[in-house]
């Protein structure tokens, strides 16, 4: 399953490192990534492949949530179908 991972928050050193390090440790491959500053906020989007992930989706969500708190950002992961359904005809 492909998922979209969004990371939003105040810019600081180590956000990309923190997130990608977690993904690597959990066998989640980054398929695509884009990062920008929107309205003064650090905004990173990643498309990831969670098929080989070490943990189930619920655990991933919880751990990423905790990681977000540690890094001072909001991290969300959602099935990519959600975005496709809403925005693609």
């Amino acid at each position, binding site marked *: 399953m492909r998922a979209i991972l*969004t990371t939003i928050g105040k810019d600081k050193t180590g956000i990309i490192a923190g997130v990608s390090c977690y993904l690597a440790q959990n066998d989640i491959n980054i*398929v695509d990534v*884009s990062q*920008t500053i929107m309205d003064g906020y650090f905004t990173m989007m990643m*498309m990831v492949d969670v098929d080989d992930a070490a943990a189930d*989706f619920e655990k991933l969500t919880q751990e990423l949530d905790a990681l977000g708190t540690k890094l001072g950002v909001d991290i969300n992961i*959602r099935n990519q179908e959600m*975005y496709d359904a*809403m*925005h693609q005809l």
Partner: protein
Amino acid sequence: MTLCTSYRRPVLETEKIMETVRMVSEEKLDLRTITMGISLLDCIDSDSDRACQKIYDKITKKAKDLVRVGEEIETEFGIPVANKRITVTPISLIAAASGDHDYVKYALALDRAAKTVGVDFIGGYSALVQKGYQNGDKTLIKSLPEALTQTDLVCASVNVGSTRTGINMDAVKEMGEVVKKASELDYMNNAKMVIFCNAVEDNPFMAGGFHGVGESDVVINCGVSGPGVVKAALEKVKGESMDVVAETIKKTAFKVTRMGQLVGTTAAKRLGAKFGIVDLSLAPTAAIGDSIAEILEEIGLSSVGAHGTTAALAMLNDAVKKGGIMACSHVGGLSGAFIPVSEDAGMIKAVNAGYLNVSKLEAMTAVCSVGLDMIAVPGDIEASTISGMIADEAAIGMINAKTTAVRVIPVPGKKVGDTVEFGGLLGYAPIMDVSHASSAAMISRGGTIPAPVHSFKN
């Protein structure tokens, strides 16, 4: 640093992804309900104990994974699902074979099954008497106050009229008395009971949901919500013409419905059930920022209840349908804007400020999705006055060929201006004033209001 690689098509469309994230986290986009409709026609038995056992067994078997799958979807799609619910075939049809003198036993069986599978509500303790009563209907209606008092999760509904059959005024009279009696036992009972005209058979919303006899054995319907998202979209078109407002609502409704369609079909697939419909209703919650009243105010009314409210609501309702219909394969249920008082922070505020009364709400029901919904009234209201309110609403539904309903809650010991707390999604409500003139003589006539002629429609 900006990184972007291409893959099939530009997949990471930043703006669109951000829009979805914002809709969920800030604008309270959620799915109001995933509802499993279960037919109980194969549970009919002349021995009521055996029938209740069959009902319990079938519900707990078919819906055993409903809550788990609902939660799974919540996590995976990151969309909160406010309620997981079950609807069943109207119990008056199932229980009629038994010859019992009351059907409380059936309500208890439904309640037990609902608790076992962990859903929030179970609907279908219902009777359809738009044209007349069969024996099962009579027994069920008589047992309503008791059945609702003895159960926690069971919701009831009675359909008293339709455009094709007219209005059963005997039922209207009786339901006034039932509402009154139910409130004397426990006023919360009436939060779980709706009186309909033109009830629909695939409605996933409570308290009026039931599983119609024309439906498949097990069906997943879902109800989307999203007033906050519509309001947020309208904030961006301040001062623009009504055409732009309608267009904006349409586009937003489309996106919200696509989400409902995805969640509904995914849930149906995982539960091995047929996917039924998406109900396009905008359903508010008592939380600030999730209110139909606030949408109407964003359109340009200083408060809901101002002149122009009905027009704004009509446009909103229509635009939601236009946007939603193309977004999903099957639309059904009630599909429109709900205007419950207790469940909508903006409505509560307008009532407290004196801008909104029962008469204005009644006018609004002519163009919205349901009717006089979650309205708390003084406990000493006459049963015939409640029947009068039911008759008025049923007439609006009958003449306009739409669904209308009444869910009024007489609260014993409370008077106009007091507040009553219902809790959870049901919110809280100020006690509203009703007309003090009597409807008794008309209501006591009983009989039937004939179906309207529609060839001279104007």
